[in-house]
C-alpha cells in the first residue's frame, strides 16, 4: 500500500519545494523563454530540479499501437480462412468423422489407449521414482544400475523395445522362477503365453517411460534446497518421510510441467503399439480405413480423441500444479472458474446498484 502512496507524496513534495515557474505542458509560446529563465532559477535554488508541473488534472491517453492492430486483423483473417476451409472443403468428410467418432470399435480402441496410458504412466513414474532415488543414493552399485537402466532404455528406439518384448519367446522359450544356478524350479511358463500383446505393450511403454521419468524426478529432487534435507534430518525425521513429505512435494513444482509433457506424449506414444497389432485407438482406426478407404476422416477421428484427452489432462495439470504451488507463491492466483464467478458476482452487484 505504501508503494502506491510514495510517488504521489514525492511528487507533491517536489511541487511544493520547486520555484513557481511551473508551466502547462501545452504552452508552446513560453518555450522560447525557457533557456533564459532556467539559469536564473538554478542560481536561486541550486538544489531544485527542473520546474515541477502538477499533472494530476490531465486526461491520460493510452499509446496507440497501429502495428498490433494490423497484426491482429491479419491473424484473425488467417484463422477464419482455415476454419472456413475446414468447414466447407467436402474432402474432410465431416459426416464420416461424426459417424465413426463414437462407433463402438473406436470407443473400444479409445478405452485401450487410456488403459495403456494409465497403467504404463503410473508404473513408469513409480519405477522412475525408485530409479531416481537409486541414482541419488550413496551406493555406487545402485547409482550404476540406475544410470545403466536410463542409458539403455533412452538409447534404444521404443519400436525396437516393443518388438523385442513381444518376441521374448524367441529368445527365451520358457520363463521360470527358481533358485539361480540350480535346477530347482518353483514355477515355469511358456514365454508366449505370458507375454501377450498387452503385456508386451505395457512392459515396453513402462520401462521406456521409467527411464525418462527417473531423470525428470531426479531433476525435481535436485532443485530442492539442500537446507530442507538438513533441517528435516536435524529434526529427527526418518529418511522415507523426508523424501515423501518434505522433498517430493517441493520437487513436484519442478517435476509436474515436464511430467505432464511426458504423459501427454505417452497418450499419443501408445499409438506406436500398432506394430504389435494391439487394437488401441490408432490401430483400430487404421483397420477401419484400410477397409473403407476413408483415410483422412478416420485419422481425424483419432486426432480429435487425442485432442480431447490432452485437453482433459491439461485441466488436471492446471489444478495439480496449483495444489503444489501452495506456499511457493504468497497468494494463489484465482482459477479460471473463480475468475468467471467473481466476474458475475461483481457485475450482479453493479446491476443491482444501478437499478
Amino acid at each position, binding site marked *: 500500500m505504501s508503494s502506491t502512496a510514495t510517488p504521489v507524496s514525492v511528487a507533491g513534495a517536489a511541487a511544493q519545494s520547486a520555484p513557481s515557474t511551473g508551466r502547462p505542458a501545452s504552452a508552446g509560446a513560453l518555450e522560447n523563454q525557457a533557456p533564459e529563465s532556467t539559469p536564473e532559477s538554478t542560481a536561486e535554488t541550486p538544489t531544485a530540479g527542473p520546474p515541477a508541473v502538477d499533472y494530476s488534472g490531465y486526461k491520460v491517453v493510452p499509446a496507440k499501437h497501429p502495428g498490433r492492430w494490423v497484426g491482429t486483423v491479419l491473424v484473425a483473417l488467417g484463422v477464419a480462412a482455415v476454419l472456413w476451409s475446414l468447414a466447407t472443403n467436402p474432402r474432410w468428410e465431416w459426416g464420416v468423422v461424426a459417424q465413426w467418432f463414437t462407433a463402438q470399435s473406436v470407443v473400444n480402441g479409445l478405452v485401450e489407449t487410456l488403459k495403456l496410458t494409465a497403467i504404463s504412466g503410473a508404473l513408469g513414474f513409480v519405477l522412475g521414482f525408485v530409479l531416481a532415488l537409486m541414482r541419488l543414493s550413496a551406493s555406487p552399485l545402485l547409482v550404476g544400475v540406475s544410470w545403466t537402466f536410463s542409458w539403455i532404455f533412452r538409447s534404444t528406439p521404443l519400436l525396437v523395445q516393443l518388438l523385442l518384448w513381444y518376441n521374448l519367446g524367441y529368445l527365451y522359450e520358457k520363463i521360470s522362477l527358481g533358485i539361480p544356478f540350480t535346477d530347482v524350479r518353483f514355477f515355469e511358463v511358456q514365454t508366449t503365453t505370458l507375454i501377450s500383446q498387452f503385456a508386451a505393450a505395457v512392459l515396453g511403454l513402462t520401462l521406456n517411460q521409467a527411464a525418462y521419468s527417473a531423470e525428470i524426478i531426479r531433476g525435481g529432487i535436485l532443485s530442492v534446497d539442500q*537446507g530442507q534435507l*538438513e533441517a528435516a534430518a*536435524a*529434526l*529427527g*525425521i*526418518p529418511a522415507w518421510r523426508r523424501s515423501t*513429505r*518434505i522433498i517430493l512435494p517441493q520437487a513436484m513444482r519442478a517435476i509436474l510441467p515436464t511430467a505432464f509433457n511426458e504423459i501427454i506424449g505417452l497418450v499419443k506414444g501408445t499409438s506406436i503399439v500398432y506394430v504389435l497389432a494391439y487394437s488401441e485407438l490408432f490401430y483400430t482406426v487404421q483397420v477401419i480405413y484400410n477397409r473403407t478407404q476413408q483415410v483422412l476422416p478416420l485419422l481425424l477421428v483419432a486426432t480429435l480423441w487425442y485432442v480431447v484427452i490432452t485437453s482433459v489432462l491439461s485441466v488436471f495439470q492446471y489444478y495439480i500444479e496449483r495444489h503444489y504451488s501452495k*506456499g511457493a507463491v504468497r497468494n494463489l492466483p484465482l482459477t479460471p472458474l473463480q475468475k468467471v464467478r467473481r466476474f458475475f458476482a461483481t457485475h450482479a452487484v453493479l446491476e443491482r446498484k444501478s437499478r
Partner: protein
Amino acid sequence: MSTGHVEITDVRKSFGTTEVLKGVSLTVPPGGVAVILGPSGSGKSTLLRTINHLEKVDSGNITIDGELVGYQLRGNKLHELREKDILKQRTHIGMVFQNFNLFPHLTALENVAEAPVVAQGRSKEEARARALELLDRVGLKDRADAYPRQLSGGQQQRVAIARALALNPKILLFDEPTSALDPELVNEVLDVIRELATSGTTLIIVTHEMGFARDVADTVVFMDQGQIVEQGSPQEVFTSPREPRTRSFFSKVIEPAFNI
C-alpha cells in the same frame, strides 16, 4: 533439571585437504549459554554441526549427558550408530539455521507439529496443541496458518525456533540465527533467544551480534582457524582479552561507539 551437558573433546574435521577443526575441546554445563564468536571460516558452524552429527567428526568425540553422539562404545570399538539411532539422538538437540530452512509448503503450525508426530510418535492433536502453545510463546499464534513465504524474515526465524523447541530438546544450537535478517528484525529474534537463555535449556549460539553475546552468554568462545583461541566469561573475553588475535578481531567488529 540438569540435563544437556555437552562435552566436546579434541574434535578434528577436514573437508578435503582443508582441516577446519584442529582439535577443539569445549564444555558447556547443563543450562549453560555458550556463544561462539570468530571470523568466517574459523570453523564455528562446522563445530556446531558436529554436535548433532550433521557433520561426522574425523577424530575426537562429543558426548551429551555422557552419551556419545553418533557412536556407541562396544568392547573396545566405537560402532557408528545406525540412521535410526542418530535420528533419535537428534530429537534431543534442536537446531536453528541461518536461512531458517522452514518447509515452504507447510504452514507455520505444520512446520512446528511435523517432527513431534513422526520423530517422537505423539498424536496429531497433542502435537498441534503444543505447536500452538510454542507459536504463542514466540508471539506468532495468530500466524499459525500462514505459509513461511507469507511471513517476514524475523517471523520465519521465530517459527523455526518454535519448531526446534517442539521436540523439547535438552540442547539448542543456533547457527547465525540473525545473519540473514534485516537489521530492524534482528531484535525480535534475539528477544526470543534471550528468553530461552533463562529457561534451563543448554544453548550454543554462533553469532556476530556482539552486544547480544555479552548479554546472554555465560561462556564466550572465540574461534579462529579451526581452534579455540580464547574462552571465558563475557566480562573476561570482551573487556580484557588475553590473546592478541581476539583483541584484533574485536577491534574490527565492534564499532568505536559501541559501549562495552
